[in-house]
């Protein structure tokens, strides 16, 4: 009997974390109890075994209940919202809170409301500040996994709960969720950050005003953006924790826009504009040396570079053939080719490309009847699909799960950030005040 190799390897990793608690300094202390070993013949295609069989594309019913951990209702609420916003579950909120403290869950109650999975919060043995999160298979009536969230009610608690929600998504689907991420965006020329659930809105002090086109480094510790200072518009790399700043060499002159880090963090692509047009350059961030020119536009504009996941190709916008269109090229500037040609008359300018984390798709916005709409292009087939249709929708950015896209939309009357699940089409607003734009989604972040 094969018990699902991927699962057991993961257990070994998590056991190692338990053996060396210093590694788990980042609030989240995941100690997995021995989940009941369930016999299984094979891992179903696209699915992972956690007691129930998860099939990609389906959304199992899930209830998040308080269980014995009374006093942790805020944790329950955050978990429930995170799991709902993962768009991987049909989150069910049954009337009342079934189950009495100290009791094993009455699985029949949850079966009756259509749940496949149940998440409960239990008091952690001998620790008043910690809470144990348990995942149950409702159909089989068994506890599948458990993890302890240390400091659940403390300062770093919210982020620890987000990390736990992402773990639950991984337990069920094989890939972590995106609750422990945040976004940068621009409002009134200022940089702001907001957590993926819309909480934690805070300004980020930039080098000048206006500051535009923020972007994240691969490790989430640095950001890059362009800022207007008195004598230039440089690209600035900023350490989020220390605030220390670096001006990308050569960007002291001219117009410098649309920075993006390569996925390995070693390089930064950006566009540099002069009187002779705008071209794409790459700065070797890791070596802190050397700026290489990739395009020679000759009075055309080449901008908005976005890296493929392996760092070998860069997609970008070019006006070399007239209106802005989507192109791609090798990372040394060779082999440029138009990637998503628009239908003249039906659709127009293309801008704001963002390459998905899995490399399979490119999101961008394109004019339809004079109004930008978000599209996604399948890199393998070059097929283009329109994702939006109400109001102006532009500047998409991918979540690290490769299925959620944040973009700017006027669908509610003011310019705000919205999040779309590309797989289900579900949309939710992220910001509430008007004027937000140029969003950039972070990688998964270990701590707040």
């Amino acid at each position: 009997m094969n018990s699902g190799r991927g699962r057991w390897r993961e257990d070994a990793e998590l056991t190692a974390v338990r053996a060396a608690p210093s590694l788990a300094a980042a609030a989240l202390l995941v100690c997995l109890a021995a989940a009941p070993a369930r016999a299984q013949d094979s891992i179903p295609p696209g699915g992972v075994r956690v007691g129930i069989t998860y099939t990609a594309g389906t959304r199992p019913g899930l209830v998040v209940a308080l269980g014995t951990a009374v006093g942790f209702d805020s944790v329950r609420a955050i978990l429930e919202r995170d799991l709902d916003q993962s768009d991987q579950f049909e989150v069910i909120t049954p009337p009342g809170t079934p189950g009495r403290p100290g009791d094993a869950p009455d699985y029949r109650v949850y079966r009756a409301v259509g749940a496949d999975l149940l998440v409960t919060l239990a008091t952690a043995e001998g620790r008043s500040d910690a809470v144990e999160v348990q995942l149950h298979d409702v159909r089989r009536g068994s506890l599948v996994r458990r993890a302890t969230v240390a400091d659940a009610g403390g300062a770093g608690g919210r982020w620890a709960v987000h990390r736990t929600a992402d773990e639950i998504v991984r337990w069920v689907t094989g890939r972590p969720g995106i609750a422990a991420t945040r976004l940068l965006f621009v409002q009134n020329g200022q940089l702001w950050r907001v957590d993926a659930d819309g909480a934690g809105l805070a300004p980020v002090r930039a080098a000048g005003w206006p500051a535009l086109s923020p972007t994240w480094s691969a490790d989430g510790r640095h950001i890059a953006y362009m800022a207007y200072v008195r004598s230039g518009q440089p690209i600035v790399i900023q350490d989020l924790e220390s605030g220390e700043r670096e001006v990308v060499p050569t960007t002291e002159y001219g117009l410098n826009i649309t920075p993006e880090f390569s996925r390995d963090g070693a390089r930064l692509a950006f566009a540099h504009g002069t009187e002779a047009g705008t071209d794409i350059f790459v700065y070797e961030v890791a070596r802190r040396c050397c700026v290489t020119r990739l395009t020679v536009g000759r009075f055309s504009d080449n901008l908005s570079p976005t890296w493929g996941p392996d760092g070998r190709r860069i997609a970008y916008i070019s006006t070399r053939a007239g209106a802005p269109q989507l192109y791609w090229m090798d990372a040394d500037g060779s082999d440029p080719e138009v990637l998503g040609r628009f239908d003249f008359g039906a659709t127009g300018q293309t801008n704001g490309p963002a390459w998905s984390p899995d490399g399979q798709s490119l999101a961008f916005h394109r004019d339809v009847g004079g109004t930008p709409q978000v599209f996604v292009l399948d890199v393998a087939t070059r097929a283009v699909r329109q994702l939006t249709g109400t109001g102006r929708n532009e500047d998409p950015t991918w979540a690290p799960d490769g299925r959620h896209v944040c973009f700017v939309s006027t669908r509610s009357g003011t310019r705000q950030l919205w999040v779309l699940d590309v797989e289900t089409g579900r949309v939710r607003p992220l910001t509430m005040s008007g004027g937000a734009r140029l969003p950039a989604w972070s990688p998964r972040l270990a701590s707040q």
Partner: protein
Amino acid sequence: MNDKPVRPRVRLSVPTCARAVLPLWVLLVAACGGGPQPGAVTPSAADSAAAAARRDSVAAAARRDSVAALAQRDSVAAAARADSVARAARETARADSVRAQVQANVTGESAPVRSGLDSASAVELSALIFFDLDRSDLTGASVAALDRKLRILQANPRLAIQIAGHCDERGSDEYNLALGERRAAAAKRYLVEHGIAEGRISILSYGEERPLDPGHTEESWTRNRRDEFSVTVGAR
């Protein structure tokens, strides 16, 4: 700009290798009219490219006044070299200043400079020019306005200006920055082609960041697609 560059407390993070090539780099930039050049910069490449660029700028100077240039080739070349050295020094100071400003959170606005012009000329010089949707070519009205500015610049040889390109809100935010740059560059190119020294005109793009008219109508958009002209060095 005129302030002595402040050495910030935090380490200036220009890489050593970039520092080493900076003088050549700047010379190259100055000679070619700004901006990084193709390929990784190496001293030898910069050397030959700078020499080539110098030849170009000499040739350009020669074209501007062909009769005089033939007779005075040596002195023109010497002047061009002196000009490019002076410009290299200015650009180096500017790079230091940008880095210092970034550390110190200095934002975009600088104090207005007194033009020293009579009021009619001052109005003429700062008159806006406008562009068609998603275009950066000059209209007939723009050319006429630039011709009037040309006469003022010719009559006041100390005067230096900045041209700022702007866009309406309809295009993509980031594309509009490039479009605004092209709009500013178009006006500058016209003035330079008509004899104004390149060094007297700097350009800047604000994209759609600073609308003149905050409205969302065709009329507002028409007013927002513009170049603004401001004085950076006064006439007297």
